């Protein structure tokens, strides 16, 4: 039976993570359909249809789906579930909200935050903030899964899947969006960025974080922060990286003034290369870094930005 992947989208844009979730879905070995649920989602459907390897894009249009709600999306997925052997979403905010609710409706145990697929019913998922990896086997009749997108390589963009409409009648929104508080920022998407610059509480202030942002701009990087920096009000909550924030797996992670609490390390274990800038040579993050510079970030970072400019780095945005 086929696999259904729930597309993630926001403001009429397909989330870059969806190409990675589709890649994971394809590893289950069955044809993959992508479901785009929303109201004004033509652009999202077009972008989804361009993902490689899919059987078709199914579009469910309804005013009740205009803003993502677990009640409406899980009701829609419950209707479609009999057609599928597996239902898959990314383990971002919407997937985490929807998938367990759907699983309960199907009387199934979901397997969530999957970082490796060994077989269509055998998966790895991190537990204890990534300090252990659990390998689970699900012999249930259907699989209901969330995927840690950063653990999978995205599929290409050369596809041309057919787009079909799905009846979204009878789907009602129970909750109502009153206000969306968005972080205004022109840096790349944190969850899928190739380079991330992270700042810790020793950055000292929201103004201090501007320095982190300047370095990120130079590198075309996304900006991350520790929980302590977010709690202190230096950075917005959607920049938080760690067990309770976003899990990232960039090619390069540059940790500035971050000592490396267990919960933060949980969020960056997938990084290919780690660079640390810290005054404390004994900091856990310095110990696991591929390259570390011991020094005061307020002296190092401005110098680093200049050096990078001199070396011809910057000016072009990176995915």
């Amino acid at each position, binding site marked *: 039976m086929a696999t259904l992947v729930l597309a993630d989208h926001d403001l009429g844009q397909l989330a870059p993570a969806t190409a990675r979730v589709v890649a994971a879905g394809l590893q289950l070995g069955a044809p993959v359909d992508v479901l785009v649920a929303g109201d004004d989602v033509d652009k999202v459907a077009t972008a989804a249809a361009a993902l490689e390897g899919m059987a078709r894009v199914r579009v469910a249009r309804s005013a009740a789906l205009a803003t993502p709600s677990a009640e409406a999306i899980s009701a829609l997925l419950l209707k479609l579930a009999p057609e599928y052997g597996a239902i898959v979403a990314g383990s971002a905010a919407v997937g985490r909200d929807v998938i367990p609710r759907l699983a*309960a409706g199907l009387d199934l145990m979901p397997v969530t935050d999957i970082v490796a697929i060994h077989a269509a019913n055998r998966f790895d998922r991190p537990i204890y903030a990534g300090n*252990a990896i659990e390998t689970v086997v699900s012999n249930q009749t259907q699989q209901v899964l969330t995927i840690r997108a950063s653990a999978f390589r995205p599929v290409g963009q050369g596809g041309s899947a057919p787009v079909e409409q799905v009846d979204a009648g009878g789907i009602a929104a129970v909750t109502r969006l009153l206000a969306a*508080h968005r972080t205004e920022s022109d840096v790349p998407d944190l969850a899928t960025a190739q380079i991330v610059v992270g700042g810790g509480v020793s950055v000292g202030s929201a103004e201090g974080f501007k320095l982190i942002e300047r370095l990120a701009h130079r590198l075309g990087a996304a900006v991350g922060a520790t929980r302590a920096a977010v709690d202190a009000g230096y950075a917005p909550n959607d920049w938080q990286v760690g067990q309770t924030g976003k899990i990232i797996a960039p090619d390069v992670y540059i940790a500035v003034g971050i000592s490396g609490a267990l919960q933060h390390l949980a969020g960056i274990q997938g990084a290919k290369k*780690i660079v640390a800038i810290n005054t404390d040579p004994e900091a856990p993050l310095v110990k696991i870094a591929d*390259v570390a510079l011991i020094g005061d970030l307020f002296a190092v970072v401005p110098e680093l930005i200049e*050096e990078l400019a001199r070396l011809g780095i910057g000016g072009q945005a990176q995915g």
Partner: protein
Amino acid sequence: MKILVAVKRVVDHNVRIRVRSDSSGVETDNVRMSMNPFDKHAVEAAVQLAEAGKADEIVIVSIGPKQANDVILTALAMGAHRGVLIETNERVETLAVAKLLKAVADEEKPDLILLGKQAVDDDSNHVGQMLAGLLGWPQATFASEIKAGEGGLEVTREVDYGRATIALPLPAIVTADLRLNTPRNAALPMVMKARQKPLAVRPVAEFGIDISPRLVIDKVSPPAERPGGRQVADTAELAAFIAGEVKELEAL
């Protein structure tokens, strides 16, 4: 308003965990245990609603071995009114947890059920959503602010793009994120008083719910170790390294 809060006893989040050498799981013998940190935020939110005159009774429920009484007592010391322990020594999966909590909700008929957004042992982040699905109630997960009004709530949630404030009718499920509040440490007189509060211990069999696991845990392994790297002497050397990495990425 009556509030039900579900709490879990887990390995204390400050303990550096160790995977058992036979790959059967994480060592939990002789390890410090405490209330799941997210659940503390849920209890604190309930107590604050009671203090604001919005709630008149807070019932705490936990599922686990006899020792899980300790985390119920912690919640009672924080200001909850009574507790229920569903006693079992078995591993209980999140679906079975949600079914047991639904049974308690059917008996207690709360207006609001608060839970932590996830437990820091299995990091599942399932139970609130599953319980909402089983009850057919609306849910507000990852809450960083709760305002109680007439017959409904306004909850601010932490989402991918920042925060979103939603309105939902009662009865409802809310799961707590870390920035919801700062949980109190109960003063000694409250801890003493907690022991006088009602705490019912009920064997899991009483509920007649099949809790046998659906998933097989094949093995539990430690994560791949990261070999330590090198220190560079100055910013120029660091810049050269980063520039090299960036150029490599651009070449791909």
